């Protein structure tokens, strides 16, 4: 039997990826803000002995090619001719969603409407008559609640039977936007029964959180809360783990004794695992959880709204704040999420700024080194100073890359109580990717550096870099080598430092000024290899290289000056 293909299409943030994950068991990134899915994802589903491939298309508002996503969605439906299109519709925003539904039906592929979020709509006082809607549209309509997997079985059943029927194939001529919206308005009016509900929690929340003054107070409060949550959980876990690992190491060295094999196993493999687990992981997991809560709650879009005025000063608009916040997690997805910006110029500008945002790996260095051994207030200072740097560089880049910025147009998502399942899954995925992707790199790097140390090459290599590391930055000579490893993954810079100095108690081997300088260099000195690759993929090698070279020069200048100023006045 031929393989059946189902495409999921719909507006941004209506639950396509949630349905996709539920159907295929895959883990497409989900969150509560429009524009998460930028590329189509494909998965497989077994249904009644048939193998069905499911394609999750990026969210679009129409099939007119105004943006990359619309191009992707339209071309897929037109050229790839999926056997059936499941149009996911947000029942609480029915009228606007029906615009795409009507355009999709005119493309001539069999369509099944998944009427999602019927629970949200009812909470807002709107009851949608699915039968009537189906009659008026002339296609099947299945009410579902994707977050609780309600109605998905019936949805697939319906989609498969529509696909088997085959049916219409000739696309109809496009109608004007006004005409289609007039139809959508009429259908929505007929199918919705409105009831009066008392003023909602959402309205009251927004009147505080989006208030022109109070809103900023809560924005700063939220940021501070995030910072201290991550730091206190990370610091606590880090202390417990590093204590555990050092006593285990003592016990192991008693068993393994002396010799080359024991040296490689203990100083390389074990020390690598210990440093990764006790220095990096304790901060990475809380960070992932805090970001997932932020994304899921719907507050992220409010932050973008509040920051619009500031972002415009650097030639962008509020939406660019979303990739920047995601940049605190990891620069790679953050650079890719810059596609939510409308023009290539805005995408490049925001991606450049995103690479300057300290990602979770760099936060490992800020928290594990500066907050833990110099003081949390100095770590907070580094974050605030970073924002200033981004604002200044953004302003300069805006001048260098002139162009009229397009204004903010963004749909505001409803607030949602973050789903525990989604948060646990995010943390689990983060831990998993750390264990299977980062840990091997860290272990190999530790073994490598220990071998370099064993054959006595550490001092020649560090000596080569010492005019910069020692002379200009005032760091210990071996910092040069760890910074080279940091290009692979930023947290490696600190992990290697622990491995080479033979202790994770940085306070005993570095001065506070050295820790500050080291953190500043690590924050800016180069995008990691994965980010350089992502930048090249999005903007070409030339642009990626330009950002890389700029950041190397900039970081060295900044850190050198910072070392002088901090040394003269504070340390």
């Amino acid at each position, binding site marked *: 039997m031929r393989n059946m293909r189902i495409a999921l299409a719909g507006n941004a943030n209506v639950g396509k990826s949630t349905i996709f994950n539920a159907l295929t068991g895959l883990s497409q990134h989900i969150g509560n803000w429009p524009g998460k899915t930028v590329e189509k994802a494909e998965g497989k589903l077994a249904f009644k002995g048939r193998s069905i491939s499911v394609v999750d298309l990026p969210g679009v508002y129409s099939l007119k090619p105004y943006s990359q996503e619309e191009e992707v969605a339209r071309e897929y439906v037109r050229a790839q001719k999926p056997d059936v299109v499941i149009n996911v519709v947000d029942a609480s925003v029915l009228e*606007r969603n029906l615009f795409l539904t009507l355009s999709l039906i005119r493309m001539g592929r069999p369509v099944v409407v998944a009427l999602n979020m019927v629970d949200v709509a009812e909470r807002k006082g709107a009851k949608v008559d699915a039968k009537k809607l189906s009659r008026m549209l002339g296609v099947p309509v299945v009410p579902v609640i994707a977050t609780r997997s309600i109605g998905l079985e019936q949805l697939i059943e319906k989609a498969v039977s529509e696909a088997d029927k085959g049916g219409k194939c000739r696309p109809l001529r496009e109608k004007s936007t006004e005409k289609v919206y007039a139809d959508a308005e009429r259908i*929505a009016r007929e199918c919705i029964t409105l009831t009066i509900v008392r003023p909602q929690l959402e309205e009251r929340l927004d009147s505080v959180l989006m208030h022109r003054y109070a809103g900023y107070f809560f924005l700063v409060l939220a940021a501070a809360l995030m910072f201290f949550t991550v730091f206190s959980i990370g610091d606590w876990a880090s202390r417990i783990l590093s204590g555990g690992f050092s006593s285990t190491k003592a016990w192991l060295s008693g068993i393994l004794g002396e010799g080359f094999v024991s040296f490689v196993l203990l100083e390389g493999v074990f020390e690598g695992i210990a440093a990764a687990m006790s220095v990096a992981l304790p901060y990475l997991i809380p960070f992932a959880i805090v970001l997932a809560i932020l994304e899921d709650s719907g507050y992220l879009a409010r932050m973008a709204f509040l920051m619009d005025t500031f972002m415009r000063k650097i030639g962008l608009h509020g939406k660019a704040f979303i990739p920047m916040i995601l940049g605190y997690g990891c620069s790679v997805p953050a650079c890719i999420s810059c596609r939510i910006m409308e023009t290539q110029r805005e995408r490049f500008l925001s991606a450049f700024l995103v690479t300057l945002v300290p990602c979770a790996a760099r936060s490992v260095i800020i928290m594990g080194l500066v907050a833990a051994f110099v003081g949390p207030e100095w770590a907070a200072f580094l974050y605030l100073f970073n924002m200033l740097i981004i604002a200044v560089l953004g302003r300069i880049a805006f001048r260098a890359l002139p162009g009229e910025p397009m204004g903010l147009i963004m749909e505001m998502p409803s607030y949602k109580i973050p789903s525990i399942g989604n948060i646990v899954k995010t943390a689990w995925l983060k831990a998993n990717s750390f264990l299977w992707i980062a840990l091997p790199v860290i272990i190999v790097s530790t073994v490598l550096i220990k071998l370099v140390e064993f054959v006595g090459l550490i001092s020649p290599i560090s000596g080569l870099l010492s005019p910069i590391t020692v002379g200009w930055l005032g760091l210990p000579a071996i910092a040069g080598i760890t910074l080279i490893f940091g290009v692979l993954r930023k947290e490696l810079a600190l992990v290697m430092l622990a491995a080479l100095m033979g202790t994770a108690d940085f306070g005993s081997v570095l001065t506070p000024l050295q820790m500050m300088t080291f953190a500043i260099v690590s924050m800016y000195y180069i995008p990691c290899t994965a980010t350089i690759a992502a930048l090249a993929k999005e903007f070409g090698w030339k642009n990626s290289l330009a950002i890389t070279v700029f950041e190397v020069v900039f970081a060295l200048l900044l850190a050198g000056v910072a070392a002088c100023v901090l040394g003269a006045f504070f340390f």
Partner: protein
Amino acid sequence: MAPEGSRAKVVRLSDLKGGDSATVLLVSGGRAARGRLMEMGLTPGTKITVRHTSTRHGPMEICVRSSCLALGRGIAEKIVVEVSK
């Protein structure tokens, strides 16, 4: 109500305050921005309500066709509306 209150008042969307209602008359601006606004439902004749405004140069949030849209100041200036009484 004063007599002039019964006459239709035509202003830019950016001039409205929180809680105001109006009908879209015209969307000007570049092709891309206009296309995007139209496909999100801001076609001439559509009723809108202002949900939130911010500072003088800041964005505003409006309700259109049961959805909530955040619009930057520059965008809101390009939308001409007739204020509802």
